[in-house]
């Protein structure tokens, strides 16, 4: 029992990220409305960002900006600073997800202009009629 509790205490935020991500994932493949899908996509990508950021977290550590006093560097203990690498990676991932979102919205606008709806099944039946 204690072991399980311990497990929960040390891993819970990884589980939370998985939960959030699966919400997004379900939305992306299960929803019918394209905008809902897009929103789900954003949730999905954000969850991954959460995962990376929690990877970089260290207990009792501060943000990775080295404390310098008058340009004199004292001995640096890496354990006092959070892992900067996941943050850097996630800056990139955020940008990627924003860009993808932008392009997706642009395409969605175009789809709406063409079919006057954003419900996928309606669009598909529209296409079938035309064939």
């Amino acid at each position, binding site marked *: 029992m204690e072991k399980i509790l311990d497990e929960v205490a040390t891993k819970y935020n990884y589980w939370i990220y998985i939960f959030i991500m699966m919400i997004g994932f379900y939305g*992306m493949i299960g929803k019918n409305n394209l905008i809902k899908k897009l929103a789900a996509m954003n949730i999905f990508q954000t969850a991954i960002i959460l995962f990376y950021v929690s990877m970089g977290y260290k207990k009792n550590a501060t943000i990775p900006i080295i404390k310098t006093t008058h340009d004199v560097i004292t001995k640096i203990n890496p354990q006092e600073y959070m892992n900067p690498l996941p943050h850097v990676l996630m800056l990139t991932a955020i940008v990627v997800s924003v860009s993808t979102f932008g392009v997706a919205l642009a*395409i969605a606008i*175009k789809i709406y202009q063409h079919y006057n709806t954003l419900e996928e099944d309606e*669009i598909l039946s529209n296409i079938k009629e035309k064939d």
Partner: protein
Amino acid sequence: METLYPALTVITPLIFAFVVGIVSWINKKICFWLALLSLIVAFISSLKILFYITTTSSIVQYKLGGWPPPIGIEYRIDWLNGLILPIISFVALLNLIASKRFMEKEFKEKESFFYILYLLFTTGLLGVVITGDLFNLYVLLEITSLTAYSMIAMGGTGRSYLASLNYLFLGVIGASFYLLGVGYVYIKTGSLNMVDVFRILPHIYNSETVLVGFIFCMVGVWIKMGLFPLHTWLPNAYTFSPISVSRIIAPLMTKVMIYVMIRVMFSVFGRWYVLGRLYGVNEFVVLLASCAIIVGGILALSQRDIRKVLCYIIVSEIGYMVGGAWLGNPNGLIGAILHILNDMLMTFCLFLAFGNVFYTRKKTKIEDLKGLFGEMPYTSAGLVLVGLSIIGIPPTCGFFSKWYLILGALQAKDHFFAVSLILSSLINVILFFRFFEVGLFSKASYKKEAPVSMIVPLFIVSLMLIVVGICSGSIVNKIINEFVLVALG
């Protein structure tokens, strides 16, 4: 190697994309020439790298920012990506010339801006192939995908937007899965450099995290390449895109993803992991690949639109390469790698030939090929040649990779894969001779060949099909074998 070529290969199209980005607001005329110039430079420098690798038989490394790996990002070019880089830049270059008229017609005043996307797409592919860093690969993958989504959407019809958005959703899932996989590897190793990860991983082969990381990387890549049954985005995306776009995306995108798969399998996780720790999984994947081959072939037979036929041929060809790579023996891997090369050329040639047809006839159904052979003799000659290559008739290149694949399948005792390869050849016979029959058995009404700027690239590529086929012995010996020796010991 202390030369500029590795950087030049990727950086030139990139910088020129930005230059075109500025120039297209000022002078639209010279954009095409700028794009052409940059791709020529990329092609030459990638050839130089290949030449260097084969003559000195050493791996080329390039430290970006001057930081040694794993601190910084490195370019690492061995025999595998050294082989693929020139082909990518070659296809991109040739397509730029061949599709110039299409671009004028399809994009009108936006043509000059389109070159930006085109160059960035090429940069992305080259970058994916050249890099030695797992995360850098992801970023470049996203550049490639983002440009691909938007280029596909530029088809301008409702269906192309829908296809593009579908592709985007699946592409995002695929890329995110890959990113997740990389994250899982990173959390256990603390490194993103491929060589470094390859060095660390054997100590933690039993970790569940690494296993799931591997699975997610693979599934992500499979979605991106369109392996059956994850191929659903592919046919629509390639069918409804502008022809100048599908001509470059179809030959390169899926094949580059297969490169990524092979790279991740053998240069990151290593053969002990993929074939040892995951023993039995490979049989399942090969089964999947065999299904891809057969289902792709059958679906191709049932289509009436030529573009869809081509797309399903691609789905089937993906099965070849995935299966070959997962057979886990040298011959299978050689076959898969050789087929990457061959299939890039074959698909490109196929799209070039049919592009010419669509350009002059503006129709895409199979019955619209009537009288093709009399009307467009050069185009149809190219078409016949590429058809034979896809069927696998020697001395065209398709035969030789198929040979290695079947040999590998026999050595792995995977008879189903071997049978499906043969079956696919037979299906392709039917498929292509259906085209040829329609083209041959109706009298030509008038003679109208595609413009020279489209014929010459087709001619060059069809020639390449034969040249590569005849030289495949030395390609395998000098280049692919070296990689396979490293990868499979």
